[in-house]
């Protein structure tokens, strides 16, 4: 059991994520890669890939004899709106001649962006997942990413769904249309700042956000 656990902690039979990264930089020297840490219990780290080399990297991962990541099981989107990120750093400060360790909180404004995430497995080698991330520059106009559908055909509908719900435009996608919502729909429902149409009606037990909405629909005397 312990051996099996140890096996699972590795990403593939052959390589760790660092080794995969090194192999990609060896084959594609210009590629800018970054390993994104994951603090959750699953600790599944992912590889942030730059947009120019994404298709080349994906093709390499699929065709490499050792990796053979021939199956993209899941493609999804993530919305990262603008946010203030708080990071705590420890600093040595000399006060009254005594050196003290002081914790400082740094607040930095992170600009918003959209991500698409791909989970790759190998059917041939029975290993995985390797997780790829692609980032857009921002959430408004520079929301284009290269499509990986030419590499993994299974991405086609999932990238359409990301386009539909997050508004990421995939360049090179063979058939990029909305898939769940209708063509004239203007919003992107999975974005954090989406406001759904207020077609509220009677709720038997309103609470929290629902209660706030309910109040706006009912005359003042019923509000309490």
């Amino acid at each position: 059991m312990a051996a099996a656990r140890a096996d699972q902690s590795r990403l593939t039979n052959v390589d760790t994520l660092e080794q995969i990264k090194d192999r990609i930089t060896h084959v594609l020297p210009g590629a800018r890669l970054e390993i994104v840490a994951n603090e959750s219990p699953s600790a599944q780290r992912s590889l942030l890939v730059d947009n120019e080399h994404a298709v080349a990297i994906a093709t390499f991962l699929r065709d490499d004899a050792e990796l053979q990541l021939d199956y993209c099981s899941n493609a999804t989107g993530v919305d990262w709106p603008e946010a203030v990120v708080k990071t705590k750093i420890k600093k040595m400060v000399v006060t009254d001649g005594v050196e003290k360790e002081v914790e400082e909180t740094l607040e930095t404004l992170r600009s918003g962006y959209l991500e698409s995430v791909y989970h790759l497995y190998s059917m041939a080698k029975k290993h995985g997942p390797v997780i790829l991330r692609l980032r857009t520059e921002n959430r408004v106009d520079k929301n284009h990413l290269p499509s990986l559908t030419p590499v993994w055909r299974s991405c086609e509908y999932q990238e359409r769904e990301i386009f539909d719900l997050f508004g990421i435009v995939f360049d090179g996608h063979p058939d990029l249309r909305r898939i769940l919502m209708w063509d004239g729909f203007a919003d992107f429902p999975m974005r954090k700042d989406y406001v759904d149409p207020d077609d509220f009606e009677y709720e038997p037990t309103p609470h929290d956000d629902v209660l706030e909405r309910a109040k706006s629909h009912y005359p003042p005397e019923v509000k309490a």
Partner: protein
Amino acid sequence: MDEGLKNELSKQGVFTVTMQDVYNWGRKNSVWPLNFGLACCAIEMIAASMARYDLARFGAEVFRPSPRQADLMIVAGTVTKKMLPQVVRLYNQMPEPKYVIAMGACAISGGPFKQGYNVLKGVDRFIPVDVHIPGCPPRPEALIHAFLTLQEKIDRQTVSGPNQARNFNADLPSEFPIPQFGEHDLVPPYNPSVWQPPAPTKAA
């Protein structure tokens, strides 16, 4: 005909019946549902029509694949906003007299998807519903109960008078406008002639 006279005659061995009774008896025992389902409720609807529950016992054995041959629309499942125009269109194509059973939590109110952006919060916002069945999904017994309720409703309808069947009243619409896809929602979000937001009730 007077009920007392009818009773008296039957004691003498004379059975009297009105045209209306025959008409209702015929209609209620040959309600043909439209063969269409939208989600998991449709599986229960299929189960209700198969041998174990056998909806045919009540005269609804022929699920018609065309709305032009159907009397009853069983809205079995989640009605998404994208699907709704087709549902209304199917309803419009059914000939009078026609009835609607809204089956399951989604069809009657949006169900677990009520707070969502893409599911219609009850099909009764656009077409008139005769019987609502709660449940997620309702069991075939519940559908049979709804069907019997509909049969009672048909039986109470009259050719003329206050409880007149709606198909005899030419002023009542038989077709309902099909909403358009808007940029954020269906346009209009509900048909005000069919459904109005419920009036607020005083909290006890």
